[in-house]
């Protein structure tokens, strides 16, 4: 099964699938607008997904689709959906099994942190959560357990309820 079909089977649109494809094969900080063509010159990079990684990507896609249905946003921008899938996949590759909501929290903090829990629940992706629920998730992310049990810190607080992402 191709990667594209795998992603499409999870319920993601073709456009989101192609954007995931882009994100996994291109190094970019995302703040520019490049015109990138398919490589026919034999130069450049290709992202390989080994068999072992396919379930990780599939899980990332499924979690995202489920999360989209649970949020109150009428529709998400395709690139935002792709960003969520890619973050979930990359963390799974690092042996960190985030939930979609935790990934969404990290994206918010990366883009606009440091933020308070009160500010985080303003985000469309978080608005069905209460402040205390968000705070609880943030606390979990301060000592997040990898598959092998080793704990790592994905967010940190300044002690004044201002949270920021660490190494996202």
């Amino acid at each position: 099964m191709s990667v594209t079909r795998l992603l499409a089977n999870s319920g993601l649109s073709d456009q989101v699938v192609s954007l995931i494809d882009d994100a996994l094969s291109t190094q970019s900080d995302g703040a520019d607008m490049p015109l990138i063509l398919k490589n026919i010159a034999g130069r450049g990079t290709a992202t390989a997904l080994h068999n072992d990684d396919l379930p990780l990507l599939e899980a990332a896609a499924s979690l995202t689709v489920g999360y989209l249905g649970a949020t109150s946003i009428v529709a998400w921008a395709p690139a935002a959906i792709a960003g969520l899938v890619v973050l979930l996949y990359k963390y799974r590759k690092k042996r960190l099994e985030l939930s979609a909501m935790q990934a969404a929290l990290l994206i918010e903090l990366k883009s606009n942190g440091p933020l308070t829990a009160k500010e985080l629940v303003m985000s469309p992706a978080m608005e069905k959560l209460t402040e205390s629920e968000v705070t609880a998730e943030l606390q979990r992310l301060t000592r997040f357990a990898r598959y092998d049990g080793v704990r790592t810190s994905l967010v940190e607080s300044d002690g004044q309820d201002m949270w920021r992402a660490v190494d996202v």
Partner: protein
Amino acid sequence: MESFYLQSANEMLGLFRPGGAPQVRAGSRLPIQVVHVHEMAHRQLCDATSLGRYMTGLAILGGRKPAREERANAVLASTLQQCWTVHEGFATYSQMLECRRLARHDLVEAKEEYLRDSYLSALGRFECDEAGLEDVVREAARLRDPQAVHGALLLLLGYLGHIGAAAAMSIPIGAVLAEGPALTEHRTRVHIQRNAPDVRLDSVLQHLTPQFRAAAIRRIVAAKPAVPSATNRWLDDVLSDLVRDLCARAEISYEPADAVSLPSLLGQEGISVVETDARDLPIGTMRDYADEVLIHCGDDFREAIENPVPLDRGRVVHEELIRTFGHRPHVVCEIGSIGQEIMLFMHCFTSKAALSSYYRKTGVPEAELRRLEDIDEESPAKVWLMVLSLDYGASLPEVPRHFGHERWTWVSDYQPEYTRNARHFEILGRAGEVCAVALPTSLIKSRGGTRSRSSHVSTMPFSGTLFSNLGERVLERMPQDLCLHEFATSDLPARVPVVRLGMMRSDGSLSDAAPASFQRNCVAATIYQGFYSEAYRLLAQRGM
């Protein structure tokens, strides 16, 4: 172990960062003007819509305040996520129209071969089937000049694409930004997420019906002043009205671009900027703005700059070109000093007829010949660029002798400030009658980046129609425009001792009947491709 490969794709041809000029890499598969149009479409949306102007503000903040760069970039990236489809869809749509304008139907038909799926998908949002365009075609056909119908149709289609994209990007944001420092505030980001252009696009496109398209075109045509206007305000106004109408039909909020005040936004960050209302600028000024581009020339050119060919070696290559093609090409030379070195950037052009003849003799594929048929007779085809090294002050007057040309003509005057440098003055003084011209050349390879025996000679891809309008405008206002097109020099350290002393061109080289417009196009192509500005950039990178 079996591997599954995602898209292998990293040929980056162009780049746009809000607030900057489009950047294009020359020497790729696509003509530079096609890539330029793609990047210009991004700039258009950033200039003409509320969200675009907000993004421009973020980019300026990141560029001017190093301490805020990381944050500004993160917010800009996040904002771009919300409008990626609108931006890339419209840019790729504009790119396809430019391919059609250039009669490069091959690039339209083969788009799946070189566009990534994400761009194709975004493009698909903007394309409409022919049935939906009947009224647009009919309006274009009402124009009196049959020759203009095709161009008019493409122009009108471009306006329609702009209306759709701008409607999606014209989100209500002014009130949020007016609440206080807001460029990178979370509340602004949340607001943009709730008004994501990519989500708005769905509603917009549902209402960009054939009926709306036809009505829009009629309004644009009707709004056109009977007497040519000095500015494009009339066009801007009618397009803004149409964008507003489309938003109303789609039942989404609309806010014009000027609801976002960059001086105010950036002033809160301690950055002073001055805005100009482009709607009231002369059309010529806006064309110059539209032509602005920074061109990167790739590794071949870098090597050529750093290892210029001695004049004698250049002559050998030049003679080889003449033997191969049996006639003299048209040449435009840029002459400049880089530190103690004088360099001659020798751009060799030929005509459609000469290229066609060469193709037939060498048996290129039929498809290539057919493509050539679509190209204007007066389009220059750049076939060689040689970077030659001249002894400081000594050999410039000898250039014509080296290349066996009878006459050369300066196409630009040097700037008065150059004379403050005694050595520059000496060189130009010696140049005397050097009026260049008639570098008879020819081509060896027309496409594909193959090299001659000299490793320092780069081939350039066939250029197609190159900015005939630009050529006319450059030459009618010489020499000022030549200086205008020295890009980005102000960003360089003051101690970089680089200057373009002047340009000269061969005169009537291809044949006695070589049309003046062809010669102008050659000059325009030389200027436009900005190789000399690339030299500046490379030197700046080297810290000179």
